[in-house]
């Protein structure tokens, strides 16, 4: 039940710690996210889903094997059109959201740690 509830809201925040321990610094934790599926939303309403490849100090992200999702109508934001783009660079200035695919267990432990 609890898992279902988490899935429906589909969002959690990785804030401070990972199961590896609270001592790990943010850079090391971001490094652990490399190669994982990342979903980035940008200003004009599109989403990009790809493998996290690189990030620089300015927050520009490079994704690999990316798929672009866009909504057909502005009024109902349902991303129904998609196309493959390969390697893309998302400048931090146009990024509005960023999520990583993680297991429910990992997420649950994160929530527990957060609390």
């Amino acid at each position: 039940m609890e898992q279902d509830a988490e899935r429906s809201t589909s969002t959690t925040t990785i804030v401070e710690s990972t199961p590896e321990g609270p001592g790990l610094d943010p850079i090391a934790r971001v490094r652990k996210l490399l190669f994982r599926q990342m979903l980035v939303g940008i200003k004009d309403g599109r989403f990009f889903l790809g493998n996290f490849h690189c990030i620089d100090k300015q927050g520009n992200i490079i994704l690999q094997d990316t798929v672009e999702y866009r909504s057909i109508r502005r009024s109902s934001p349902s991303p129904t059109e998609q196309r493959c783009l390969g390697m893309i660079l998302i400048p931090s200035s146009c990024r509005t959201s960023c999520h990583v695919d993680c297991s429910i267990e990992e997420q649950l432990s994160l929530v527990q740690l957060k609390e």
Partner: protein
Amino acid sequence: MQPVREESSSIHHHPRNSSIPSGDNSVWADVSPLLSAACSDLHEGELIHGDNFNLFAAMSALEIMDPKMDSGIVSAFSSIDEAIESGFAPVPISSNSTVNVESIIDIMDHLLVCEATWHMGHSLAQTVFSCIYVLRPERTSSQALLHSYCRVIRATCRAVVSVVSDARTNEEDDLFTMTYGLPFNGDEDAKGLPLLNAVEETICRQLRACKATSSKKRVLEELEPLQTNPQLEESFCKALLCRIRFRKHFLHTLNCMRRPQGRGLELARKHIASCISELDSFLESAEFLRIDVVENGENEIEEKTTASGRHPIGFDPTLNKRLSAPTPPRAIKLLSWKKAIDYYVKLLHNLDQICAFSMEPDLDYVLQSVIQFQKSRPDLVSRAHLQLLLVQDGKLYGRDTFLAICARAVALDATRDHALQKNEYILQLGQLMTNLLKILCANTPWQRRKLGKILNDWSIFRVQMGITVGQAMQQDTSRTPKNGDKSLVILNHIYGWLEEQINWVALRFLMLGFDLELYSPSEYCMVYWYIYITLWKLAERARFRVLIIVNTEERKAKKNKDYHRDMAREDRISLCVLLLQCQTSLAQGLTVMLSALRNQGMCIKSEGPFNTENEKFTQHFELLQKASLPEYDAYESYTESTSHTRLDYLPMYEYFRDAQKIAKDIKVGFANDPGKLAEVRGLEQVAEHNIIAVNLISRDCSLKVSFEFNHHPYFATAVVRRS
């Protein structure tokens, strides 16, 4: 750690939709705060990346939201449907019938501009298919005029795409045939033409009705006028009629030209003539259409995409931008309406030139005609048509085998020799000829590159054929000394002719360098030297071929009293040989003059700070040397023959005088061929001017000499000035 905690409160974005699935048994976790914490900890220039990261590869990443790279940026509308729902392309366009007609004319004009811009190398998606009425013709089915016009536009685009992709000349302009994701519905679009005919009929009647006197009007009263303002009715009808008729004839032209073996060319010429006369009516209608706009004081009409100068309704080039992937989005500038009309006039003239081909199975004629055609730099569409006409099913015009054509070039008849058709060399020759003709229809830079490359194939083929034919000839003469195998005779003559053909290709390769401005004045000396040796060989082989032809024809005439000798053809070929000799003398004269100037320091030497003369020589002529043209060390021969020329000896050489004399003699022969006559006149003038220049510079070394191409595109005229 502190800043991270603070930022965590600002998280509000999350995937708003469940349709982007996370993995099985997994969820999306927001990492924005973590990323920003990590970023602030990073040093300047530091990256977080995996082991497989490669900065060079990363440079090729597509930058999102960069207008030059990201074709997906959501602009005015998210989709075509959204645009339609917002009333961007209403049907009908206006409830006021006059405004409706005006708007339709604007759409027609803008579509013409879009189509021309597409032909010039932009994507179909960003040009013709930027029109919502073209994208969704089913919406306008109640509006016969707009509907049928859009259907015909689509059918025309289809016909053009099919010509260009069948000809496969589009490697050079790969964007042209990209129709991925565009709605092409052949069956529905084919219905456009009959519908447009019906619409034309109606408008014709409306035009007659408004012209008719009041007494007759009663009879025609049942016919509803095109629009409500009776004063404008006639002009509107006329403006629409010429636009409709142009579309109709243009589509007919394209279809006629595609008929096999050039059977539709005659009819196509009639449609082309109609198209051109309708284009004149376009310009006439512009006066009337822009009355409103002139009153509003708008002066920039020249740049507009419509005759009226108004912006058309229902066009958004950003709608389909994503379909132009995988190429990056390109900024496109549409032509103006006036320029588009000029473009069509040129296109139609080029198509007419193709239709005027005499379809003679004469290789010399075909090659000359193709080169003449290419002189006006025709665009992709007409070049594709020419190529499809020339080569169909591996035959010339889809009719004559290349064996027959090549045998005819040496006055032999190979049509009855069926065994020869399957000869390995003949099959290969057919392949080489097909390839050559296709290349000659390509654009200039592409053509030159390819010609250089195929030279090697031709010369290898010639060497192999030479060995086989030589061995066969030896065996043959030992067996039957009197009556040799006829196939072998043909093969032997074709082998001899190959050398001429190879030198012809080499000459074309060298000449195209002038068209592409590849030669600098300091390199003219080596270029003319190479042209000279190529021309010399070509003229020699051609003269030899004339002897064979005359000899064979004479024998045929002796054997058979009724035999009709084609004297006109024999004369034509002999004239061409003389023309080649004239050019040879000119090239030789130029080489000597340029080398003398160089040797005495009156011209800049071709040695620059970066590469030696030998290196430049190799850069220009490497492909020719690889194909053993000439068979000796070209650079050595070039330096030897040009290192001792001196200015004071120049007038002793009679090269320019020889050229002038031949030119004078052959002018009469070309009286019926205006193109060739103009060329001979040009050559004569080059010779005349250079004779004067030679006399001047041999006496006074302080003169300044430069070279211009004002009399002939390939043979330079020396211009002498006091310093």
